[in-house]
């Protein structure tokens, strides 16, 4: 493929105008004509929201207290401003490892170290465009969560051309992991490891053991990565999670403390540390971490109300300082522009604080506000947020309100053991162990009953009636995976039997969209998407 920059839309991000000017000239010498340049993250995001760039060259270090290149990448991806074909190159002044260390979820296509000549730049861009082009269909399939197709495409390329073998192995093993095909994924990763102990491959294996609840094995892999490569930050995150599962919260916290000392810039890690420290009653560490995550949140897409409620809780518990705690919550409301999901968390926490200092009236007011917000927006919030609010309800003695929220959480997640365990833990903490046990068991029963009713109708071939049952159930349980998947499946079956029908297709799409939002990696969702796609193609 020839390097033709003429039609490419290019964005340069660097705080140093002379550098932008000189890189612009380099790209122009390679034929580029459509180049925009900006000096900071806000402008970069703004440009990306209005124009579909093909190539983005972004400096990592854009000045103190400013969005850095990694945060720009995260926000742009998160907000969907980057096409799968967009090339994102991170430009750095020195060795790139410090940046790689901070990155968790999103990585640029490549790193370039200053200084470079125009020949090197144009050559690198052309090679990357070529690679991007070759992997285009695979990346598209992955971004649509069509992992089966992604795997088939990887296999085809691996057979035809060994050029991007490592990349293809990595994508394929991730796709297999998303589909729950653990053993196949392990096979590929073991094969990679047999040629070289690459940390990403070992991390992949550790993650699979974690999913398989084989925590001891997982722990050994994560520790081995850190032993060989102490800068591989993701291994610390997973080791910490694994230690929590093994019941060793103290070591889990220590692990994150080590990681944060090496690479303090990752907001998600700071938050995780804050939450662990809070559970371990280590208020100093909790306060320090939440303060950092609040500060980082100001320029990050990952900012969360939890940083503020966590900080407020520590300030209240450790320093008995309600004024500061309330101020922190007010800051959150301001920083999140009165977002209802945030408001329900802060209002509930306000209730807890007022109750503690004996302001019963104000406490009730805050709790009622949280409760009303939950009533109105509850169906849309994540189980995490809902649980946070429910815990606050328990804390102030509003047991009934707390139970109701927990009941909704269980209804929508009746088969998710991790969430059910957290729910039970919260009941335990509130001295409501048996109430929680009973509620979880009966709610599970209730869902299973409705679900079985529908499944039986399907078995009898009464598809129209089955759809009616699932439809009703799914409307009441918009976040329940199994019920929504069964609703979609019954619709697919009736389409297969009676032929296409706009109404059924429309309904089926609705359930599949819901499933995608709940858990795109749910294996049954994958199967349904595939069959639905084939049906639609006919």
């Amino acid at each position, binding site marked *: 493929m020839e390097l033709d920059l003429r039609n490419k839309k290019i964005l340069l991000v660097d705080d*140093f105008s*002379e*550098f932008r000017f*000189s890189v612009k*000239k*380099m790209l122009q010498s390679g034929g580029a004509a459509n180049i925009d340049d900006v000096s900071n993250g806000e402008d970069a995001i703004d440009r990306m929201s209005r124009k579909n760039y093909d190539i983005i060259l972004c400096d990592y*270090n854009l000045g103190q207290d400013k969005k850095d290149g990694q945060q720009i990448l995260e926000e742009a991806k998160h907000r969907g401003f980057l096409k799968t074909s967009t090339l994102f190159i991170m430009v750095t*002044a*020195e*060795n*790139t*490892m*410090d940046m*790689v*260390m901070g990155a968790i979820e999103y990585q640029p296509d490549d790193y370039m*170290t*200053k*200084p*470079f*000549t*125009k*020949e*090197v730049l144009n*050559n*690198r861009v052309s*090679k990357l465009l070529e690679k991007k082009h070759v992997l285009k269909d695979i990346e598209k399939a992955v971004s649509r969560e069509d992992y089966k197709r992604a795997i088939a495409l990887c296999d085809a390329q691996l057979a035809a051309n*060994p*050029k991007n*073998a*490592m990349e293809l192995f990595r994508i394929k093993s991730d796709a297999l992991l998303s589909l729950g095909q653990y053993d196949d994924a392990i096979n590929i990763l073991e094969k990679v490891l047999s040629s*070289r*102990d*690459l940390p990403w491959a070992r991390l992949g294996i550790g993650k699979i053991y974690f999913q398989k609840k084989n925590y001891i094995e997982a722990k050994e892999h994560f520790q081995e990565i850190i032993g060989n*490569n*102490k*800068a591989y930050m993701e291994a610390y995150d997973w080791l910490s999670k694994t230690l929590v599962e093994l019941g060793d919260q103290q070591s889990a916290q220590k692990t994150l403390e080590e990681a944060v000392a090496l690479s303090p810039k990752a907001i998600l890690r700071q938050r995780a540390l804050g939450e662990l420290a809070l559970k371990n009653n280590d208020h100093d560490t909790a306060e320090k971490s939440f303060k950092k995550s609040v500060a980082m949140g100001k320029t990050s897409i990952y900012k969360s109300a939890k940083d503020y409620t966590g900080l407020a809780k520590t300030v209240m518990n450790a320093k008995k300082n309600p004024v500061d705690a309330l101020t922190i919550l007010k800051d959150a409301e301001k920083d999140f522009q009165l977002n209802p999901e945030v408001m329900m968390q802060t209002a509930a926490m306000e209730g807890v604080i007022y109750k503690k200092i004996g302001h019963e009236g104000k406490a009730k007011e805050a709790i009622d506000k949280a409760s009303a917000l939950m009533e109105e927006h509850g169906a849309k919030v994540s189980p995490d947020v809902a649980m946070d609010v429910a815990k606050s309800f328990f804390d102030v003695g509003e047991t009934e309100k707390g139970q109701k929220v927990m009941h909704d959480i269980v209804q929508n997640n009746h088969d998710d053991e991790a969430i059910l365990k957290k729910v039970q833990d919260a009941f335990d903490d509130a001295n409501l162990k048996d109430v929680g046990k009973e509620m979880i068991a009966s709610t599970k029963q209730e869902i299973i009953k409705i679900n079985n009713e529908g499944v039986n109708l399907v078995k009898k071939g009464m598809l129209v009636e089955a759809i009616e049952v699932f439809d009703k159930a799914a409307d009441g349980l918009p976040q329940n995976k199994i019920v929504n998947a069964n609703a979609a499946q019954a619709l697919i079956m009736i389409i297969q039997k009676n032929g296409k029908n706009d109404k059924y297709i429309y309904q089926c799409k609705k359930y599949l969209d819901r499933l995608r939002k709940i858990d795109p990696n749910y294996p049954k969702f994958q199967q349904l998407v595939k069959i639905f796609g084939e049906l639609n193609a006919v």
Partner: protein
Amino acid sequence: MDIEQKEDNIDFSSMLASTVHDMKGSLTMLLNTLDEIIVDTKNTNLNIYAQFSKLQYEAKRVNNNLIQLLTIYKMEKSQYNVNIEHYSVSDFLDEQILQSKSLFEFHNITVSLDCHSDLYWYFDRDLLSGVINNVINNIIRYTKDKFSLKAYVADNCLHIELHDNGRGYPKTFATTDSVSHKRVSFATGSTGLGLYFSSLVARAHRNKNETGSIMVNNNSEFGGGLFTIILP
């Protein structure tokens, strides 16, 4: 008392890092601008072209030395984190040649690359680029008119060879064995630093029980110096 304490508190390593960062910003601008002037004057003003090409060579030396010093410092303090990934060797070497293209042209040095396009290997790109760039800069100064780069795999190791047709390496460090960094003498000037850096980089590459090494001798195919780095 107070003043002394303050001085103790200065964190030398972060001061060094931020100063180098700052200097590299200036050097980047200097190198970019020189590159532009060189292109503009190549066919119009031979005198300026020659002068700026010399400047470019010197600026590159400063840049290389700076990278080496900072990397060595970080490695000795265990602050450098080696990042081994799987790369196309020919793409990587192409880029190293391109990085010095205008200097090769100025000195009329014929460059050749012998590397299979399917050759992939595991290495830290920043570190290896530091090594190759530094050797290339020396070759630009000492070779007569030839430079060749070869890469191949033998005994499960990647070998990268840099051949020139200059006078060869001085006897003090030319050896047919692999170079141990303990034997490198700094009395010989910046080449000493370069070799020390190269052997550190080589040794930072490990696989199973094998460790990387470098070799320096005068067995070049052109009868000049030959630098080899071997990575497991």
